[in-house]
C-alpha cells in the first residue's frame, strides 16, 4: 500500500536530511505507529506519502502508483484515496459537524443525494450521533478530533494518515480516539499514525516504526514505544 525505497529528503536551506535512505513497506490493512522525537522525520514521511513534498532521491509508491511519475494534475485523485487527521483538527469554524464532514465530499463534486446518505453514517461511526448540528466551538477537543476523523474517512480512503491525533487531547479521551482509529482500521483501511504517546503505542500492540534523525532505527511488529522515552 505504501512503499518507500531508499528515500532521502533534504529540505532547502538545511544540511541535515529530514529522511535519510529510508526503506519501508506498509501492507494493505496494516496499522503502523510512526514514533520518534520531534524532528525525526515523522511528518516528512506523511507529507511525502501525500506528495506535498518530493523526495531528493529514492522511489515512493502509494496505492500502486509511482509518485515520481504521477502528474500534478492527478495528485488530487491520489489524495482522495488518503484520509488525513492532524493534531490541530483543522475544522471549519463556521460550519457545523455535518457540514464539515460534507465539505470533503462537496469539494470533490459528489452528488447531494450521496452526501446525505453517507455523512450521517460516518458521523455515527465516530460516535457523534445526535451532535451533527453542533458547531466546532461547542465540542470538546476529543469530539472535534472525531469530526476530523469522520471527514478523513467519509470518502472511504484506502489509507488514513494521522499526525499526532491525540497530541491535544487528554489521555482518557485519547482512548476513545484510538478506538475510532481501530474501528476504521478494521474496515480494511491502512492506518499510519505518527505519535509521541507511549501509553497508546504500548496498549495497542501494533507495528512500530521508529525514526531517529531521519533514519529507521527500529521496525517491530506488535511493538512498544521503547524504554528511552
Amino acid at each position: 500500500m505504501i512503499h518507500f525505497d531508499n528515500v532521502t529528503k533534504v529540505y532547502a536551506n538545511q544540511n541535515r536530511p529530514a529522511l535519510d535512505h529510508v526503506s519501508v513497506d506498509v501492507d494493505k490493512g496494516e496499522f503502523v505507529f510512526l514514533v520518534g522525537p520531534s524532528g525525526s522525520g515523522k511528518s516528512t514521511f506523511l507529507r511525502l506519502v501525500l506528495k506535498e513534498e518530493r523526495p531528493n532521491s529514492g522511489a515512493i509508491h502509494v496505492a500502486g502508483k509511482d509518485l515520481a511519475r504521477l502528474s500534478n494534475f492527478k495528485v488530487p485523485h491520489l489524495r482522495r484515496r488518503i484520509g488525513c487527521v492532524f493534531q490541530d483538527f483543522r475544522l471549519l469554524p463556521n460550519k457545523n459537524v455535518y457540514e464539515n464532514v460534507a465539505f470533503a465530499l462537496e469539494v470533490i463534486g459528489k452528488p447531494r443525494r450521496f452526501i446525505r446518505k453517507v455523512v450521517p453514517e460516518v458521523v455515527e461511526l465516530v460516535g457523534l450521533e445526535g451532535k451533527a448540528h453542533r458547531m466546532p466551538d461547542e465540542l470538546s477537543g476529543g469530539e472535534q478530533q472525531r469530526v476530523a476523523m469522520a471527514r478523513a474517512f467519509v470518502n472511504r480512503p484506502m489509507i488514513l494518515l494521522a499526525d499526532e491525533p491525540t497530541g491535544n487531547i487528554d489521555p482518557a479521551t485519547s482512548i476513545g480516539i484510538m478506538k475510532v482509529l481501530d474501528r476504521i482500521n478494521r474496515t480494511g483501511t491502512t492506518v499510519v499514525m505518527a505519535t509521541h504517546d507511549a501509553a497508546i503505542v504500548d496498549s495497542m500492540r501494533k507495528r512500530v516504526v521508529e525514526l531517529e534523525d531521519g533514519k529507521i532505527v527500529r521496525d517491530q511488529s506488535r511493538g512498544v514505544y521503547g524504554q528511552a522515552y
Partner: protein
Amino acid sequence: MRANFIFSEVWIGLRRNLTMTIAVIVTVAIGMALLGIGLMVNSQISGMKDYWADKVEVSVFLCKKNDPFPKCKGSGGVNEEEQTALRALIEGMPQVEQVEFEDAAKAYENFKVQYASNTVLLSAIQVDDMPESFRVKLKDPETYGAVIEQLEGAAGVSNVVNQKKLLENFFGLMEKIRGFALVIAGFLVIAATLLIGNTVRLSAYNRRRETGIMRLVGASNLYIQLPFVMEGVIAGLIGGVLAAVLLIVTKVFLFDGVQGYLGNSQLTWETVASVISLTMVFGVLICVLASFVTLRRYLRV
C-alpha cells in the same frame, strides 16, 4: 461541479474583500471606458477621413471691389481676362482633377445654409459681399503644395484656402485625444492587474483554511481556484458594465454633440456596441489572467 457551492464561495470572497473589490471595479471601469473612448475616436477619425477624402478642395478666392486683401489693393476687383486666364492656368495643371466656378450668388446660398441659425450675421451680409472663387479638386489631395504656390501668385487671386490643411489640424487634435486616452487606459490596465493580484492574494489568505482542507481531501485544482478566478471575473464584469454606461454617455453627449458641428455622423450604435463588447471581453480577460498568475504564486496546489 456544483455551481451553487462555487457561487456561495465567490460571494463570501467578494464580501470579505469589499473595499478591494470596489477598487478593482472602479479601476477596470475607468480603464475600459478610456480604452473604449480611444477606440471610438479612432473609428470617428477613420470615418471622417473617408467622408472627407473625396470632398476636400482647394478654394481660390478672387479679388472683389475694395477687397481688403493686400494683393487686391488698388485693383477694382478681378476682371474678365484675369478670370479666364486663371481658369486656363488651373485646368492646365496636371494635379487638377476638376475645377468649378462659384459665383457670388451661389456662395451666398451656401453661406445662408451654413449660418442659417445666425440671423444677425445673415442680415448684415449681402450677395455682393461674397467673394467669387474657383473650387479646385485635386487628383491626390496630398499634392496641394505646388498648386497653392502657383495660384497664390496669380493675378486677381485674393487668397487660397486649402481645406485639407484645416482638416489636418482637426485630425491632429483627434489623434492626440486618442493617444492620450489610450496611454491613460494602458496605465489603468496595469493598475487593475496589480489590484486584482492583491485582491486575490488577500482572498487566498482569508480562505487558507478552506483551501488547505480542499487540497487535503483531493479537490481538483480547478475546484479550488475557480472561486478566486470567478471573483475576478465578476469584478471585471461589473467594471465592464460601468464602462459601457460611461461609453454610451460619451457617445450621446460628446460625439453626437461634436458631430452636430461637422454635419454628418460616423459613430453608429453598431460601432459603440462592438467597442463595448470588445472592452468588456478585454476587461474580463485581464481579470482572469491576473487571478491565475497570482493564484499560481499564493495558492499552492
